[in-house]
């Protein structure tokens, strides 16, 4: 079955993305990692759709793609603001929302 390796790949990608998200301090790289995680999820949907022969998987992929695009556009806007205000892209430097 093709789905198993695809799912494995998706898991690996998700893991890589997560590690990247947790280990990188630069906020741009964290966004990149986030994209990887999203795409891993999307890959899992494709694999699932192929496994069950259903179109739903591809629909969800399109959704995720759109979502990712939307998210990136908002996120990049925030990143721009952050770099403009704090003169840095280090995520650990921002803790304005601490309780």
């Amino acid at each position, binding site marked *: 079955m093709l789905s198993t390796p695809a799912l494995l790949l998706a898991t690996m990608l998700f893991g890589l993305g997560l590690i990247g998200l*947790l280990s990188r301090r630069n906020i741009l790289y964290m966004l990149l990692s986030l994209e990887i995680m999203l795409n891993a999820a999307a890959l899992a949907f494709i694999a699932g759709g192929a496994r069950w022969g259903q179109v739903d998987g591809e629909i969800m992929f399109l959704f995720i793609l759109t979502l990712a695009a939307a998210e990136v556009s908002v996120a990049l806007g925030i990143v721009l603001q952050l770099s403009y205000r704090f003169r840095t892209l280090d995520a650990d430097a921002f803790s304005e929302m601490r309780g």
Partner: protein
Amino acid sequence: MMNLLWLIPILPLAGFLILALHGEHLSRRLVAWVGCGSVGMSACITALVGVEFFHGLPDRASYQQTMWNWIDTSEMTVGLSWHLDALSFLMVAVITGIGFLIHLYSTEYLSDDDGYARFFAYMNLFVSAMLTLVLADNLLLLYLGWEGVGLCSYLLIGFWYHKPEYGTAAQKAFIVTRIGDTAFAVGLFIIFTQLKTLSIQQVQTLAVEAWPVGSNIAMIVAVLLLIGAVGKSAQLPLQVWLPDAMAGPTPVSALIHAATMVTAGVYLIARMHDLFALAPLVQGIVAVVGLLTLLLAASSALVQHDIKRVLAYSTMSQIGYMFLALGVGAWSAALFHFLTHSCFKALLFLAAGSVIHSLHHEQDIFRMGGLRRQLPWTFWTFLIGAAAMSGVPLITAGFYSKDWILWSVWSSPLSQQWMWVGALLGAFLTGLYSFRLIFRVFFGEVRTAAHGEPGLAMRVPLVVLAGLSLSVGFLEIPHTLGGLSLFGPYLSQVLPTMEVRPGMDDSSEAFEQIAVTCSALLGIGLAAFFFLPRVSVVDRLVGTAVGRFFVPFWQGGWGFDRLYERAFIQPWFALTRDAGEFLDRGYGVLVTGAEFCHVRLSRTQTGHIRWYAATIAVGTLMLLGLFAL
């Protein structure tokens, strides 16, 4: 004419309204006209009503007039209704007549005062409330007047408000009487719950039907009304406010704290006499309270320094006589003493006021003396007043009324012999302290110079009252002395006449009268011995061990003030001084709990995005692990 009755209490009220709302803009002359005029017109209408009352009405029973229904529910109907009978007419006549004289006197006495309009406004309100009290047809309206006079008393005691101690005296008067009023109110609740009516006439008839003599309910109600009366009339144990109440201007003391308001308790008990007759034990208490108060007050009056305090204690003492008379069932005698007392005590206060006025507000009798020559008018009128109060036989009104009371105490089936002995001792003390005043103030060497006799407006009331103090006694002359009985039959329409214990005849009455006369004259004579030039006698007496104990004890009114200070006032202040909201602390626990959680939980919100991401990842893994298991 009778239908003008409603105007009697309303006219002074109108005077009050004019003065209260517009008094500041009126000239002093006009204020005096409004103030005196409203009461004077009331007095005139009283006279008109009186003419018809005595001639027009068959058997002079009573006359009712309703203005409107005050409270009108299906359970309770109480009208703003007036009830005129012999008893209330007597009170109305005294209040308007003496009230008018005192108003007239005040126009001169207070002529330099800033609060001229305010004074007359309060005085008019007082007269109105007092008339409401005595004309009320039901107990609730009576209570309105009762509280109204209390308020005016408060306002007038504290009339010179810039002195904090006067304010304290005013508050004391109001609060102490309010304690009595509250008991009175509870009495009203019981009466209404039991009898479903508050009309005085109906309450009396229904109570007689419904409650057997000596039943608990009658006792409780009578005791509660008695507490109310005791508060208002400054009798034991609520007497402490009256001496301090002398802080008010002297006309106020004359009108409120001598002639009218303080006798409201006497009026109440006389009004509700059927109820008290149902509770013989309570009636006995009335007598004992009266007797104790009269001795307490008479002994305290002996040692006071302030002329007005002497008179205040003497008022308590004389009202004690009235209570004693009520207690032994001599209703008419009590009212007769009320009548004579309001004449001679008003006279004494006004004359004392005239002394104080001439001495620039000096009230200490030890700084007075020899005023006999400087103030002849004042001296003679004061002398007549004092003679009437001590009961100088035959010529003064006080003799006839006091003699009637003592004879009643002697002969009543309700009294005991020791009561009579106590009352006799009181008569002796009365003579002593009255003439102590005379000798201290008007005889001896001059200590403070007086600046002339008062003017006409003050002199006329003095002379009129002096005339009354000599003459009203002739309304009731005991038959050992000729026998002319007008007052007793007049009141017998309303109040039952006292039965005499068997075995009392003219000779015992004559003996009793001689005893009374002797004790009064002995008191006066002893006063002459003590307080005329040879002052050293008194000083030596005061210096002995007994004197050193009794003089301060009596000066403090038998230590009641200090007792109440310890027992009630200090605990009360301790209670209210740091009375925090202890209930609020319960909610404080909630607040502390919320804050505790807040501090702990807010630490997890670091603001670091990678910390959030990591916790999300770990949390997801843990959840997945949970599902996998």
